[in-house]
């Protein structure tokens, strides 16, 4: 036995093309269920608006609206997914968001610059994350208990500091920093994105043809890229008025996805969540990978709080109560495992979009706000049921298929 370098290239060239089963893997209900559900919901509301004589449901105005409403929960769903992948849990994000908002406004009211105020707010969030992380990883307390405690404690702290009153600001510069609308030419940019996907597909397919390692998704990438390009050129608006906050949301989503999907950091995070002991004995600095998600959660929670006050210029100590549960619901809709090691931030984003599309759709349809929470509850349990059943069927179908 020798510790030689990896095999030379000629053995690799004989790699067989992926089977249809492998190619279809990402389309299975268990993997893509949340996307199907989202498409179904959009379709339902669009048809319902058509038949009841209301304006086009997916109009540029309404679609921009849904995105804007999703921003806060969406951002938190991304970092919550990271935290869940690492095998932990964070209930304190709503309280931390309120804390970050409160700190920012307080600093702003002392006459400090807006940058200083924002940094102070974000700093408070990071601090909360560090406290959570240190208690969970350092002492070994259960994450659920720790963050339940910090959630309650931080709310209490806010009440003490504000004496139960809301904090307000007269200054407009925070609103100027994070408010406002930046129109985008959706037709052109979506077409460019479509072409980029198409190009990636071509590269992937060529690698596959040459017998190199590839994902086997080449044909799908080419097809969907071409479809997106053509479709956007025909239907997409030339002026899509998205708020600044939507761009921040999108940037966080894309960066988080790229890091988790394509970097060694992402791989190690999944390893730590999948089997902490194995990861530790493979030389991964486990503590760092366990604490960082809490810090990211604190940071992004504070950011969400700041986005919130940039709009309302005021915060009361009870603002954003229960936010963390909506965030976790979005992550669960996206198929994130509560036991660590599995999850996809983009699917969690779709999960958040589903929740807010439902709220928006019910508003547009004039169905009354009373039904919203009931429907949301049903959707969450329904999603979890579908995931479990799809997985069970997946494991059962195999033995059956074999019997002649």
């Amino acid at each position: 036995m020798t510790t030689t370098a990896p095999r030379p290239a000629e053995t690799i060239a004989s790699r067989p093309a992926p089977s249809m089963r492998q190619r279809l893997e990402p389309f299975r209900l268990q993997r893509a269920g949340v996307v199907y559900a989202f498409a179904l919901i959009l379709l339902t509301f669009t048809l319902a608006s058509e038949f009841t004589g209301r304006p086009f449901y997916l109009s540029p105005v309404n679609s921009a609206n849904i995105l804007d409403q999703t921003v806060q929960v969406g951002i938190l769903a991304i970092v919550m997914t990271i935290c869940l992948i690492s095998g932990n849990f964070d209930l304190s994000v709503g309280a931390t968001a309120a804390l970050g908002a409160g700190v920012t406004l307080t600093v702003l009211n002392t006459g400090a610059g807006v940058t200083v105020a924002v940094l102070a707010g974000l700093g408070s969030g990071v601090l909360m994350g560090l406290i959570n992380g240190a208690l969970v990883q350092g002492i070994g307390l259960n994450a659920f208990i720790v963050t339940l405690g910090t959630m309650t404690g931080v709310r209490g702290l806010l009440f003490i500091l504000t004496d139960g009153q809301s904090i307000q600001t007269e200054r407009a510069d925070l609103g100027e920093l994070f408010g406002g609308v930046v129109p985008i030419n959706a037709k052109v940019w979506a077409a460019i994105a479509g072409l980029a996907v198409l190009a990636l597909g071509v590269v992937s397919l060529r690698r596959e043809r040459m017998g190199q390692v590839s994902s086997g998704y080449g044909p799908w990438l080419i097809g969907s890229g071409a479809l997106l390009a053509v479709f956007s050129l025909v239907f997409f608006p030339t002026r899509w008025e998205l708020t600044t906050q939507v761009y921040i949301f999108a940037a966080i989503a894309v960066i988080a996805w790229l890091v988790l999907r394509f970097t060694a950091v992402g791989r190690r995070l999944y390893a730590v969540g999948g089997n902490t002991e194995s990861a530790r004995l493979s030389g991964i600095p486990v503590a760092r990978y366990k604490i960082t998600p809490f810090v990211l959660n604190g940071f992004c929670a504070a950011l969400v709080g700041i986005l919130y006050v940039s709009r309302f210029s005021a915060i009361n100590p009870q603002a954003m109560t229960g936010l963390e549960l909506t965030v976790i619901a979005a992550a669960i809709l996206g198929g994130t495992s509560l036991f660590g090691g599995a999850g996809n931030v983009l699917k969690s984003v779709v999960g958040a979009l589903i929740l807010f599309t439902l709220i928006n759709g019910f508003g547009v349809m004039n169905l009354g706000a009373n039904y919203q929470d009931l429907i949301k509850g049903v959707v969450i349990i329904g999603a979890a049921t579908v995931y479990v059943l799809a997985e069970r069927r997946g494991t059962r179908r195999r033995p059956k298929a074999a019997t002649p």
Partner: protein
Amino acid sequence: MSAALLEARGVSKEFPNGTRALRDVSLTVDDGTIHGLVGANGAGKSTLFTIIAGAIPPTAGSLRWRGEEVSWTAPGDSRAAGVATIHQHIPLVPTLTVLENVYLGELSGLYRRAPLMERYEQLCERLGYRADPGRIVEELPLGERQMVAVAQALATGASLVCMDEPTASMAQAEVEVLFDAVRRLRSDGMSFVFCSHFLDQVLELTDTVTVLRDGEVVATEDTAGLDEDALVDAMVGRTLHQMEDERATPLAPDAPVLVNARDLRSPGRLDGIDLTVRSGEIVGVAGILGSGRSELLEALFGADSRCSGEVTVRGEVVPHDVRARMAAGFAFVPENRVRQGLVPSWEIWRNVSLPDLATLSRRGVLPDHAAEIDRASAAITELGIRTPSADTPVTSLSGGNAQKVVFAKWLFGGSCVYLLDEPTVGVDVGAKADILRLVRDFAAQGNGVVIVSSGLEELLAVAHRILVMRAGRVVAERATTDTDEPELLALASGLTTVTGASRP
């Protein structure tokens, strides 16, 4: 002639992925007998077990129970008929007491301790062994848990108990207790199917042995007419086992010191250990469970944060930290491969590249998928891992192949010291020979190995020098050529403390 207790006729099992796990397997278990079942990893033992337990149906063939054809479709069916299956991972509730576990199936309504206790005492009488009924199962050593599982099977009125590797990581004394109980129950009319990789135990305990190879029965014979060589030949179909009879090639007297550990201490685990590994040397560590043998390896690997002492590699001090030790060339194959060695939900390639991900990544950050697959494929060829491809999830591999994947993690990383904790537990003879050969070749290239094993024969075969540990200390050190199994066993169990410690 009365009908056999259990009879399998022409049982076949084909899985949808095309694997034919069993081909036309026939097996007969008579009343009051112990039936041994041996075979290499992947030979189909586990599949046969699950079919007998009723967890999966056979593709073809039939099962007969006391002469009547049965088609069990759920584990409950077979249990009701009188079959108890004890898997390697003992199915007890760890947080309940021994008594509650033994009568788990009957706990309903009011829990009344007195009548259960009475029955428990009778049960212990039959078993010839008594575990403290008030102890929480979690706190019991592994061997005792196995006995509780047997008691549980007995309490459910089972007339056939199927045991899968019951003695893996059991100390010799515990094995004796188990075997005594099994023999006693046999004379009571109970039957057993005993499945083990320890062929000496199979020969010692069983009445009849069935050997499986590649899903087929290659032999069913009376144990009395068999010996270990005959069994191994039947199992592997080739003569691989000579490996074990060899002794290590002597070490060059001037081999330089590779690793030097001084005064390793860790509260409650290690009590001042000195260890030297020379270039090309294989150091064996013997000792019973809890003697500190696994803890020693963890300390050497830097995985014990409370450990003090000094470890040098080629004269340079390496701090107590896993990454520093890895960088210095340490590689660790832990005792529990599923819990400590692998990420179970991952494919082979992802597991193999984990410790060395940085070098397999572009600019150390972006993992190079092609390079990872190549490395995993190279490892599969090099170690002879039996798998359709590098994309196979590690959970669907057999024990020996999963263990090879753990080895593969360290194969190409430029390690110079292997720390191996029970590398051959639950591994069949063929894979065991592969692994031992790998260890020898690795050492022969001037590297060092510290190997912990309960199999003293194996240590004697592979190591140059053997340290015997007890209660966190090294109580004796022997050159392999100067010692034998009985002496090591005595030293490890503390029978000859004085003589052992008095020798240098």
